[in-house]
């Protein structure tokens, strides 16, 4: 079956594959691992759950898969409540970080296992396995055992096993973490292509922000069992709701400096910075956190507004150089220099920014807009 035919048949037979989480909570004993998670995932959307380890992203994925029980709230897939349904009845397929292939079965049998167990005719199983294997360039490996495959090949088999199930929703649990850097990039692109080709809803868990940024239609940033922000990668990066999201996404990390509004404007360590205007009553009283992305800081002259930074060292990366330094109040500051020699360690430079590039946060870390 060609991919076009496959997509067509899916369109004809498979109902909508959106996922709706409604106030989903997970408790382990007295500990709330996830609290009141509500999220609507559209049909065909590529959603990435991202967050530091222990934030509950994998648990949330496993709850959607049906591998973890839901303590409270409901989960619906394709308009059907599946909160208490068995994993195999949810129309999902999952790709595990450790691949979780059946070691005693060949690639062919691994991929066809679910259909065979469901008692489908042998010819149908073979056809579906062949189609998936072709899509993933696994034809030559069909008779091998998982132990005879490389990490990347194993992960492709795991994805193939998921495709054969013809699921409404693909779930990926950190599928690339066990691969080396080069292979990870390769597989990332393959997964992106696969999504375009199949058009299924995909939910992808990772702690790697590059994977999140490049793959996602929408990123969901989790921390401590709560959704911090859900939005398009550009919004998460450029318009974060809070200091955590601002700091979590972006490499090198966003610069955060303590500042305050004076009668003359935004002041950091006694130096003025061109920033957004003060909105009366909201942020002019008291301290704010000022956050600026490294690539949005630039060198300014002595007379322009800017903060002095003492240089520690520079990282040359070929097309750009990251310069690391410290502000007057000993806060780390990183900036990016596109060309030219980096400033010498120990020297002092002045950095400024455009007002629209400066993000302000209150004492609790919430964004001031």
């Amino acid at each position, binding site marked *: 079956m060609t991919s076009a035919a496959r997509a067509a048949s899916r369109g004809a037979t498979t109902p909508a594959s959106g996922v709706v989480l409604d106030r989903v909570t997970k408790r382990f004993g007295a500990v709330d691992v996830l609290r009141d998670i509500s999220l609507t995932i559209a049909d065909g959307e590529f959603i990435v759950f991202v967050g530091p380890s222990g934030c509950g992203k994998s648990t949330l994925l496993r709850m959607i898969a049906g591998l973890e029980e839901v303590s409270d709230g409901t989960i619906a897939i394709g308009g059907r409540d599946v909160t208490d349904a068995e994993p195999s009845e949810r129309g999902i397929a999952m790709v595990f970080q450790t691949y979780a292939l059946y070691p005693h079965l060949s690639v062919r049998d691994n991929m066809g*296992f679910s259909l065979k*167990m469901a008692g489908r005719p042998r010819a149908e199983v073979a056809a579906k396995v062949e189609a998936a294997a072709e899509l993933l360039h696994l034809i030559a490996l069909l008779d091998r055992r998982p132990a005879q495959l490389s990490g990347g090949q194993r992960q492709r088999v795991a994805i193939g096993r998921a495709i054969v199930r013809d699921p409404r929703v693909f779930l990926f649990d950190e599928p690339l973490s066990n691969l080396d850097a080069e292979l990870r990039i390769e597989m990332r692109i393959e997964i992106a292509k696969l999504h375009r080709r199949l058009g299924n809803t995909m939910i992808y868990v990772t702690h790697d922000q590059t994977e999140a940024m490049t793959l996602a239609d929408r990123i969901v940033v989790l921390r401590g069992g709560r959704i911090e922000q859900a939005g398009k990668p550009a919004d998460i990066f450029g318009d974060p709701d809070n200091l955590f999201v601002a700091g979590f996404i972006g490499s090198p990390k966003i610069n955060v400096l303590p500042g305050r509004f004076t009668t003359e404007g935004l002041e950091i360590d006694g130096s003025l910075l061109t920033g957004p205007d003060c909105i009366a009553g909201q942020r002019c009283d008291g301290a704010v956190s000022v956050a600026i992305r490294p690539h949005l800081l630039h060198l300014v002259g002595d007379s322009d507004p800017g903060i002095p930074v003492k240089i520690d060292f520079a990282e040359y990366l070929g097309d750009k150089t990251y310069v690391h330094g410290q502000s007057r109040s000993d806060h780390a500051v990183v900036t990016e220099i596109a060309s030219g020699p980096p400033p010498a360690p120990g020297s002092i430079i002045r950095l400024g920014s455009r007002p629209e590039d400066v993000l302000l946060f209150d004492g609790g870390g919430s964004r001031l807009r």
Partner: protein
Amino acid sequence: MTVSTISGAVASPRRRMPRRIDIMSHAAGILVALLFLAPIAWAVLATFKSRSEAAQPPLPPWPTEGISLDNFRTLENFGAGILHHTLNSLIVAIATTALTILVSVLAGYGFSRYRFPLKGFFFVLVLATMMVPFQSILTPLFLILAELKLQNTLVGLVLIYVTLQLPFSVFMMRNAFDAVPPEIAEAARIDGVTGLRLLIHVLGPLVMPGIVSVGLIAFLNAWNEFLAALVLLTSQDNYTLPVLLTAVRAGHYGSIDWGAVQAGVTIMMIPCLILFLALQRHYIRGLTAGAVK
């Protein structure tokens, strides 16, 4: 240049060293192997001595008065015949093995994969029974079997052997199941395979080395067990081989018929050797499974 010089300087003494160690370790290995093999060879050679020669001091160990099959004839003519008693032993050993595997696989699966109240306690309880020397419970076991009308039956003997075999087997099987990554069972669950089907199609093949080890140990223990068989089996027709051998031992006027004993020992070795040779690879994998991640 530097690299080749260094590796050359290091390599030449290294190349000599292993040779001396190799010779020594081979010599030591051969010596130990001989220590293990000598009694077996001795027993097998003594089998072919005539009855009178077998009663003599056993040097040299091989028959000097010509090869004789007297000893096997003695075995054949004793009781219901060696074949009958071998069959008894085989029935007991195979039934013990089958039942032990069945119960320990299910119990190991349960202890490894299911959550239930007092799980840890029950597991320790099962293991604790290993601390009780079974000779000390032989009398109660005998009385229980008598109540069940199973004394002097092979079925009763099988039940006792399985009971004795289970604690260790359950422990082994739980470890074998523990060594299987949980994601594999989860993947199977997503593929719609749970419960008994999961055990048969996915986990069973993965714990096969453990099953082989448990089965092999159960078979050998049941095959070789003597005391319980001696106590529980009263009619000669039901004797298993170890009991038969003590019965056949008594020669004329209190002398011991060593030749017949050696012939019995030789016959008893055969199934064990076959099993070990056929299954040794699985067996070793099973014993070391879970030892190193």
